[in-house]
């Protein structure tokens, strides 16, 4: 089983390492979904090292908790988290987006250990998580199911179909989290397609709703703890986040959605994230090697 980490500092360190790895992976690939990967670093750290019960040696252990990255494009952060958990070797991370790599640009179940569902076509992952939660209920099993949706993704009607079904069926073993960074691919969600009043909408759909700062490990821990006490309702955690978090040159901008980093941007970003000179040098040489 994974050891439950309650030390906030340690969880923050894991989130920071995820960011660093995401930058290195995307730098090497030459392109990637940077903004929406680094915005979920803390959410993934808390899920995989505090909240979920997993067996790092057996990613398919049948009583494991399940996580579906419904906003599939954020998977560089998920892959980096998997390397931290031990589902995949760390050196695999540098194969991101390669044609024969398990680490495709959108996650594929069966290719990479730990991926519970193929996602990438937005709006679909939550329904599959609902199916898993319902499956646990029918089989009388105790595992919990988590789904992470994007804010632009909530424009998709299927999200709301899944929301209705989950509350009708009182799936209290299901927690959906929104990476509410308020930016879609082409602009502010408030302009592209407003989601507000988001809290009220999910309450109206019959969910227990919790708001949290999605970069505060403590607030996320509290939110997941609260979700465990909720009976006969699924829980929706509105995690307020910043797209491109801690990558100063793209933070809170929509072009951070998919980026091609220059060597200089990689260097300054890794510096900001606290990498050593040697580490930066290695990242830059890997970047060059691949191109």
């Amino acid at each position: 089983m994974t050891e439950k980490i309650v030390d906030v500092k340690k969880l923050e360190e894991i989130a920071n390492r995820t960011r660093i790895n995401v930058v290195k992976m995307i730098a090497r690939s030459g392109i990637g979904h940077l903004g929406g990967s680094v915005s979920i670093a803390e959410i993934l750290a808390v899920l995989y090292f505090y909240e979920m019960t997993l067996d790092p040696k057996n990613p398919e252990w049948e009583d494991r908790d399940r996580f579906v990255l419904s906003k599939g494009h954020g998977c560089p952060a998920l892959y980096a988290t998997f390397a931290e958990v031990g589902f995949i070797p760390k050196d695999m991370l540098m194969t991101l987006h390669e044609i024969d790599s398990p680490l495709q640009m959108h996650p594929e179940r069966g290719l990479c250990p730990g991926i519970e569902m193929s996602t990438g076509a937005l709006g679909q992952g939550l329904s599959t998580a609902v199916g898993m939660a319902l499956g646990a209920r029918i089989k009388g099993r105790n595992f919990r199911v988590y789904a992470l949706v994007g804010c632009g993704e909530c424009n998709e009607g299927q999200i709301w179909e899944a929301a209705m079904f989950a509350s009708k069926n009182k799936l209290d073993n299901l927690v959906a989290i929104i990476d509410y960074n308020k930016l879609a691919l082409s602009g502010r969600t408030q302009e592209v397609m407003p989601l507000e009043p988001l809290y009220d909408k999910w309450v109206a759909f019959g969910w227990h709703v919790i708001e949290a700062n999605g970069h505060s490990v403590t607030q996320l821990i509290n939110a997941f703890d609260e979700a465990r006490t909720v009976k006969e309702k699924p829980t929706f955690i509105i995690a307020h986040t910043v797209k491109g978090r801690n990558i100063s040159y793209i933070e809170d901008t929509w072009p951070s959605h998919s980026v091609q980093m220059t060597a200089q941007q990689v260097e300054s970003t890794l510096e900001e994230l606290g990498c050593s000179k040697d580490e930066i040098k290695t990242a830059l040489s890997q970047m060059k090697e691949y191109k």
Partner: protein
Amino acid sequence: MSQKSAPRDVLGRTLTDLAEKDPNIVVLDADFWPASKIAQYKDRFPDRFIEVGIAEQNMMGIAAGLSTVGFTCFASTLCVFCSRRACDQVTTSIALPRLNVKILGLYAGLFVGKNGASHQALEDIAIMRSIANMTVVQPADALETEQVVRFAAEYDGPMYVRVGRDPRPQLVPDNYKFRLGKACTIRDGKDVTLIACGDVVENALTAAASLAKKKIDARVINMSSIKPIDEEAIVKAAQETGKIVTIDNHNILGGLGSAVCEVVAEKMPVKVKRIGVKDIFGKSGTNEQMEKHFGLRAQDIEEEVLAFLKN
């Protein structure tokens, strides 16, 4: 030909029987169970009957999620909504991860009880067979439908089963056993081969019987396994009868006829005549009106075959 029954009529009984033996069978429905004729299953296994409401996209996703927990899922709604409405969910959530979900499409092709164009699935075979990992089957009668559903419960992977709405006589032999990728030659012949699936196999057989009176010996193949298709049976038909006529209760673009042509063109080029809906939308009307309007009656098939053999 024995007493007529509708392919859909066997669904409730067959699924119930399967679920009695297998606790991992679940059935999902999108507000269509009275028409899907699965009330018997619903009443017997309420905990394994999942009503999603009119939300077919969500249904496909939920089925995908359930299958990852070890269930064999039968997701059931009209063919049009399985394919046109939920195409991306079927593709990304089911076919890409190759999950154990069987999609039962009801109301195949033109025969939809006067519901008209919005409910007539004339694209579903084309859509489903172009999705990688997907298998596509349309049984010809009630007996074959039962066989296919039983096969689907055993088969590990995604499958699309196109189920006819209305009664047809039994066309496959009593001892028939469905095999994926294997056609059933219902009538042997040496002058021309008629290849069809689903309801219109009956029309092809009737046409063949009439042609026989005109000394034309037509082979009739029930190609219920559309993907994978029985290449061997097609090549053999091309070699032995020289000409092939396909009958599609579907748009002639992308349907069974197209699938047959793909094999013929690559493996044994002979002339093929495709009968089917000629790239137009359907209409409201009785099955008889549909068959007449779209040229799928036995007499229409016969005329097409005669004209084709003259050329």
